[in-house]
């Protein structure tokens, strides 16, 4: 079960230069970032803080939906889903 995580330009250097990464075996958005924390820790900690919360000015979309408008990190993910990580305009 694979989920694609698409990354903004500012984070690609922490993903080996890749625009997106594929994460296997995750059931929720939080799982996806947990697994990224193992494979790409410098990337993952730029998306979530050390307590596991999404950084305040980082937005994550599942399809067209901001996960914060739903179940947040507990949002379920399915095979073929695409997560889009974007910097919030409120952050500057």
């Amino acid at each position: 079960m694979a989920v694609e995580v698409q990354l903004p330009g500012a984070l690609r250097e922490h993903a080996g230069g890749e625009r997106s990464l594929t994460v296997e075996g995750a059931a929720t958005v939080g799982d996806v970032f947990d697994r990224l924390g193992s494979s790409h820790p410098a990337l993952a900690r730029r998306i979530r803080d050390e307590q596991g919360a999404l950084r305040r000015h980082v937005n994550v979309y599942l399809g067209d939906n901001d996960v914060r408008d739903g179940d947040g990190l507990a949002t379920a993910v399915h095979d073929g889903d695409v997560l889009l990580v974007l910097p919030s305009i409120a952050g500057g």
Partner: protein
Amino acid sequence: MTDHTTEDSPLSDGRSRLPGMDRTLLAIGTRKGLWLARSDDGRATWQVDGPHFPMQAVYAVAVDTRGDRPRVLVGADSPHWGPSVFRSDDLGASWQETEQGALHFPEDTGATLTRVWQLAPGRPEEPDVVWAGAEPSTVWRSEDRGETFELMRGLWDHPDRPSWQPGFGGMAVHTVLPDPRESDRVLVAMSAGGVYTTHDGGASWTSSNHGLEAYFMADRYPAFGQCVHKVARDADDPSRLYLQNHGGVEGCEQPGVYRSDDGGATWEPHAKGLPETTFGFAVVAHPSRGGTAWLFPLVADGERWPHGGHAAVYRTTDAAESWHECSTGLPDGLYAAVLRDALSADDADPAGLYLGTRSGSVYASRDEGESWSEVVRDLPDVLVVRAATVG
């Protein structure tokens, strides 16, 4: 522009580096990145490159010259992606960071790191020890030259913590001063909690603010809670300290500049020769000569610029018994502040002094503050300057 001279390359204008011409590295941390200035001609001229870490706020820099190779440590934070500590062992040609983050709060604290405010190399006898001060107000210690840090739980769990208040810039430990005599003794300062000291390597901490005024509190001389801006340790007598407080303005009983002769246990005002009001952020001690220190006074918390826009550093050579203006080469018409870490000295003799303004200019002095020349202008808001001889 990326332009830095290497060990074997000539000076930028084609001259060869003469024997005895040390290389000086000046690191300039700003609100939008880090700039590095290098001088190979005795600090007469500078080559500047940057920005490194574009659009990240660089509050903390250390140029650690204790090891075989100098290590530059940088605390940078992005409003989106959070804070990190970067290190370079090649004077800024390349940077590394610890994958998991050099500083990260343990899960049981429930806290998250906002930013690193201070990176302070430890005693020369402990070349792998580096201290960090951070926001929220915490002290951290590294034993691997800044690659990983341990939270000092004694200060994290301090009973005073619930009463600490943020200063205008945040609630942070901005000053960390290891005692050169003993590895277990460290003095820190925070806004706004005041001065704290440890005598057991960070396991326990005691507030140390006797005599310091907190004019913004009902009890003007509380045990803690002062908004101490910066503390510097005398080069000859480690028990002697110079302090710039949030004070010395209308409504205060005391000036904003103090000295302690007992390791911070007690503080007395020492402002003779300073302007009428003695607000400010920075205080710097000479790196090797006792009794010498520098300040950059500002008018007030309500007027954060030098008096009359006349930029001036004040120097003492008699351990703060008196202060004297040094302003040759500094601008008139400066209506910007110099922040607590934007005034610093290098490790040379005579000491070089460096000053960065919130209007993005950096000045350097080769004669211990007597005269100044511009290094660079039009940078973002300068937050920190640090310089050292690196070759």
